[in-house]
């Protein structure tokens, strides 16, 4: 009796499994992309890639950490081919954990400058975003903003005038990691203590709400990524955001020395990729003029190939000098950056 029950139970369990499991073993060519970049506009790009090559793009998205745990658990059986993310720290971290393999494509090596690739070509940048200062020209004088650097933001002048989002945000973590890489932990901590004292309010909201705060006169300057203002100016966030963004001016920090902090969206090929050839084709496609044009025009990021110009709205901000601090350092110093911001009381 028990035996037959167990048997039928086993059978039931099997049926349950089969009915729940998504059939993933189809004969079509495919590339499996693990991504923590999940912009709607990318879907159009992927569809275009499929149209061109016949290779189906399968997407699984999640935060970098979550994807890493999933990859760890899947081990050698992982179906993942490409890892794609919006934060350099994450990329560097993946590379250090040995999840990525070198990209062999000569084409990619030829068109992408060396600072936008991993040390052994484990990853390649797909788009760039600068973390800059936006200010309200009504309350900030030309003198104050001229030749400004991130370091200057700790000065008395800015007391109660700065808004920035929470230190849980990865863009802030990368920025502070880049400061640690350039100034050392001790000086960065001194800077952070003063900087936090200059906040106009407890950090809250996203980059866009910092820009809104400045536009509405709640603060004088905000730190935010360039593409947010692009989205706002293009009217994608509604008429009110467009008007607010028009009140703002941009300042690229550290133009006198190492340049403005730049973070990247980038991708690499996973170590156990079952479709390596497709993965390389996919990355090559993302770096093609066609895909780059699509990216700059829809997500308002900066392109990584020099034959394409940024979106006109972004191009209007002008050229700037980019900080060439190694992206790998962002990953190395990220944990230190988090702890440092904790100690400085940056919420």
């Amino acid at each position, binding site marked *: 009796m028990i035996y037959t029950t167990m048997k039928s139970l086993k059978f039931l369990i099997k049926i349950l499994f089969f009915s729940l499991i998504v059939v993933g073993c189809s004969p079509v060519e495919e590339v499996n992309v693990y991504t923590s970049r*999940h*912009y709607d506009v990318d879907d159009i790009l992927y569809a275009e890639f499929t149209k061109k090559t016949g290779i189906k793009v399968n997407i699984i998205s999640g935060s970098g*950490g979550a994807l890493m745990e999933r990859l760890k658990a899947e081990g050698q059986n992982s179906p993942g081919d490409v890892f794609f993310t919006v934060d350099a720290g994450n990329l560097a*971290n993946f590379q250090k954990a040995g999840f990525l393999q070198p990209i062999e494509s000569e084409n990619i090596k030829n068109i992408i400058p060396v600072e936008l690739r991993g040390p052994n070509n484990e990853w390649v940048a797909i788009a760039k975003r600068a973390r800059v200062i936006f200010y309200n020209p009504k309350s900030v004088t030309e003198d104050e903003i001229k030749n400004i650097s991130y370091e200057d933001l700790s000065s008395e002048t800015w007391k109660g005038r700065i808004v920035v989002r929470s230190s849980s945000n990865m863009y802030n973590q990368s920025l502070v990691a880049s400061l640690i890489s350039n100034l050392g932990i001790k000086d960065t901590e001194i800077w952070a203590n003063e900087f936090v004292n200059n906040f106009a309010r407890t950090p809250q909201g996203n980059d866009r709400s910092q820009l809104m705060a400045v536009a509405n006169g709640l603060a004088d300057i905000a730190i935010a990524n360039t593409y947010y203002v692009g989205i706002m100016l293009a009217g994608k966030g509604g008429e009110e955001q467009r008007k607010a963004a028009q009140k703002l001016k941009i300042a690229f920090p550290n133009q006198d020395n190492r340049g403005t902090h730049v973070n990247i969206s980038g991708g690499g090929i996973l170590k156990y990729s079952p479709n390596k050839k497709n993965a390389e084709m996919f990355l090559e496609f993302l770096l093609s003029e066609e895909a780059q044009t699509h990216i700059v025009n829809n997500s308002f990021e900066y392109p990584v190939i020099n034959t394409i110009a940024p979106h006109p709205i972004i191009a209007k901000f002008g050229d700037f000098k980019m900080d060439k601090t190694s992206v790998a350092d962002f990953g190395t110093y990220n*944990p230190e950056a988090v702890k440092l911001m904790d100690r400085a009381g940056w919420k």
Partner: protein
Amino acid sequence: MKQFNLNFWNIFTSFIALTFSVPIILVFLSLFFGFNDNFDHIVNVVLLEYSLNSLLLVVGVSLIVLFIGVISALLVTTFRFTGSKILEWALILPLAIPPYLLAYVMTEMFEYSGSANSIFRSLNLISEDAALPTIRSLSGAIIVFGIALYPYVYLITRVALMNISKPILESARVLGSNNFKSFTKIVLPLIRPAIFAGLALVCMETLSDFGAVQHFAIPTFTTGIFRTWLGMYDLITAMQLASILLLVICLMIFLERKQRANAEYSLSNDSREDSDLIQLKGIKNFLASFFCLVPVLAGFIIPLFEIISWSVEITNIFSIKFIYASLNTMLLAITAGIITTMLAILFNFNLRISKSKHSKLINDFISMGYGVPGLILAIGITQCLTYFDLILSDIGIIVTGSLFGLIFAYVIKSYALTNNVLESNYKQFSTSIDESARILGASKFTLLGNIHIPLLKTGIFTSVLLVVSEVVKELPATLILRPFNFDTLAVTVYTYASEERIYEAAFPALFIILIGLIPIYFISNMIRSSKGLN
């Protein structure tokens, strides 16, 4: 035959319980991996702040949900007042809007140029360049959670109130008790287990929430867990923090159990009818309507209109993507609802029959799954499934990254919901029924199928529907466990919100609310019809 039954129940429930405990045990195991520098840093620098904020949040939210939930439940079950028939079910409506979504909505409304400020300015209530206090604060979060979660207390308390038998109240009245006295002496002790069951759910939900507190940038335990994991790249320390949180949740479950142990039973075969309701007049009538209307407005009607107003701002309306996301969401939610409820029935039945301390302990232990932050739970499950795949590899089954893992997570996450509902439902009919049935020769299957399930009807429906509304809203575990190309509505909303394109989240958000309304429709219908039957 009898011998076999006994074995089947115990073996089956223990096996299932064990399976569902594994991911939770994995989280606790982290405590044995040793503590590193990051842990020291957390203890020295931020732990006090995390604990204090979490504590204040839970206490504040508890006060709000008790105040709104219990009083409104009492009002609609005891009195008749203007709109009471509508408010009776409308009070559940905020359940359709998850806390993170309400947080997104409230944030937009209370932005400097948000709709709340615009309305106040146009009514000249505040000056042209002034603004209302921002909602992104601890007190703002308390209000958001309070409004979003009070229906748990309201719903369970109301079901309990309706099941208090008329004779008890009538005897009290005959014996000269006034309303207040019969409330504190008779009604309150009877509904106390229900109130605490609802409150426990609210507290667990608040403690394990990530979306809303992250959006408000409030340093709580959960934000700390994710910061440690994703910022310090340190999963072990993150899991150690999660273990501390779980211990607190254990304590809460224990306290709730203690409350329940003292509970008294009542027979529910004679519920009150509408004609028994006392008609309120004048100012009392107005106050009762007002009291019940405010939470509905704040928790449902106003947010709904705000989201609808977003949809006007966007041009690309809805696509095939949303339809797929909705279908996926429904499929998952209903499957998880049925499985979880079936398990809860079996477990509670076994508990009632065997009365074994051992099974009770297991039952309490899996209930903790509700308090496990979704992402941490998802990690535990991914690790489990990988082992499982290794064992099953000869028949080529891959469960990692399949819907199986996702449903597994939902069941663990929502077991406490079904358990609380069924347990308090079971408490309401005496075990003497079981004894009579067994004396008359009914097997355990007959007892369960023919006697308990019909009696538990209300509880079963409530529990399936609670799970459905929980799954529709679930976010973090879904993000990590879902298969390729598989989006749910919650994932879609989250994606837009994290890309700071909240207006484009309008349609998926409305879909979440719409799907959330279906269980609410059935719940209120069912409660009403159960009233009619009696």
